């Protein structure tokens, strides 16, 4: 599904990613672990096209995405939920969801939104509320739901549990597990919450100084406490 081949990227002249390669197969969930500032968010931003590649190639469903704009990557089936939710605060929940629906997808908008509300019943009761008036957890759920309105094949999640109360973290986790199990959604998740990444991921990549230094199984996260060193402690 996704083939990342020796990519280099950064901010201006400052390199952040220095030759990252990995693949994500259909229906696979890949977790990415690493200290702050190691390039996890930059990796996701590069995959969605917000940061340009210096060299290397990104192929998605056999199509070369390396030089394509973000919106074309999104239309190809890559969904991205950035860090900090990034909903539209002045639009209502319904309008936020409508924004996630892309007309080119070929199925009716109302049907897509009904389907999403069935999966996210919490949003149904606050459908007319402004996005900015929601709690952090509700905003995160909305950001996830909005992204899923576009029916992505691969979902990029950047720290979805950051600053969210535990009950909603569990809710998000259950939703993602269900989406992965029932719809075969492939996911790349950057996360500091070890339990979250362990329960969701099929495999976990460890990133250090812009390079992938290893791959571990999710079970190893439970068995090897020193891996906790790859995440920030609060």
């Amino acid at each position: 599904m996704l083939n990342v081949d020796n990519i280099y990227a950064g901010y201006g002249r400052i390199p952040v990613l220095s030759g990252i390669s990995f693949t994500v197969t259909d229906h696979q969930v890949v977790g990415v672990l690493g200290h702050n500032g190691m390039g996890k968010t930059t990796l996701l931003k590069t995959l969605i096209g917000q940061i340009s590649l210096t060299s290397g190639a990104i192929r998605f469903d056999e199509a070369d995405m390396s030089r394509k704009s973000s919106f074309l990557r999104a239309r190809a089936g890559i969904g991205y939920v950035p860090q900090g939710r990034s909903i539209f605060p002045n639009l209502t929940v319904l309008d936020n969801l409508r924004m996630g629906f892309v007309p080119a997808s070929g199925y009716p908008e109302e049907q897509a939104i009904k389907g999403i509300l069935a999966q996210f019943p919490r949003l149904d009761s606050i459908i007319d509320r402004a996005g900015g008036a929601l709690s952090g957890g509700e905003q995160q759920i909305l950001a996830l739901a909005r992204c899923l309105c576009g029916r992505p094949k691969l979902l990029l999640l950047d720290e979805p549990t950051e600053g969210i109360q535990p009950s909603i973290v569990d809710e998000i986790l259950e939703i993602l597990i269900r989406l992965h199990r029932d719809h075969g959604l492939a996911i790349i998740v950057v996360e500091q919450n070890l339990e979250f990444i362990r329960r969701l991921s099929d495999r976990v990549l460890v990133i250090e100084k812009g390079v992938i230094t290893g791959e571990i199984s999710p079970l190893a996260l439970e068995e090897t406490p020193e891996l906790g060193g790859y995440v920030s402690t609060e």
Partner: protein
Amino acid sequence: MHPFVRSNASLIAVGVIGIALLVGLPLALELFTLLRVTLFVIFAILALSLAFIWGYGGILCFGHSAFFGLGAYAYAVSVINVGDSTLPIVIAMALPALLAAALGYFMFYARISDVYVGVITLTVTLIFYNVVNSTAGPQYRIGDVHLGGFNGIPNVPSLNVPFDPNAVLGPQDMFWVCMVALMLVYFGLRMLLRMRFGRVLIAVRENESRVEFLGYDARLHKLIAFSIGGAIAGLAGCLFTAWGGFISPTAFSVVQSAQIIIWLMVGGVGTLIGPMIGAALISWLTASLGSQQTVDANVVLGTVLLAFVLLVPKGIAPIVTDQLMPWFLSMCRSKPSVASVSRKDKT
């Protein structure tokens, strides 16, 4: 109240007010005042064009008079050459739209935004101003029209009935045409903003990257909005020239551009009704101050702008809709009716 009426109350109110003004003003006002009001209506159309691209698209165009002036000159040159105003109206809208599309393409696709867009558009209008100003020589002609440099182009024919150059519109007809044009532009923009295009445009204003992550081409949306704004400004320029029968390079001036921004700031950026009110109010104030010798008009206008920026930064329309209207409605609800009071007294 019927749900359709409730959800479209403001649209219906504007429509009713518009029709009332369209019918009532020519009956109530003398010709000179009606001519003045026609000018305010034309300026309201110009204000709407910037209100759309700045207030909803988030594109701060400092040189909006470039499109206004281009529309005005395009109309003047083509109507004198053609003799019939039908095609020149189309040209006066198409040329500024094309300029906006070309300018927007280079700005938005090069990821230029915010203050740089302001600087570039300001530079473009200055270039137009200087170029047109220096076309006084006899060699600067387009067909039968001598551009006239700083003297401008006089004796520009007014609008006529479509395809009938002999049926020239009088001042009262011009008022009707301008009012209808204003209402068409207003309702057209409202309709556009209710569509998916409008929703995406507002989202682009809030955050361009977020919109792209969802699969929308933010730059294309900005480009289309900018071109529509250019076309509307061109229409205002065309009506302005047809109204006055004269156009000069001051149409491209920085003062003209600044004035449009002031109308929006006074009326309220992010609304459509506010800029129309701002344009009419400031234009009326400018005209009234210009007819007296006691106070310098620019000092008063500057003071008004400062007062609005400091005291009413959101402008008139948001203050009325967000604060005064809810307060008024709550007062109406809490105030017992005369009938209920008298019933109480009897008991």
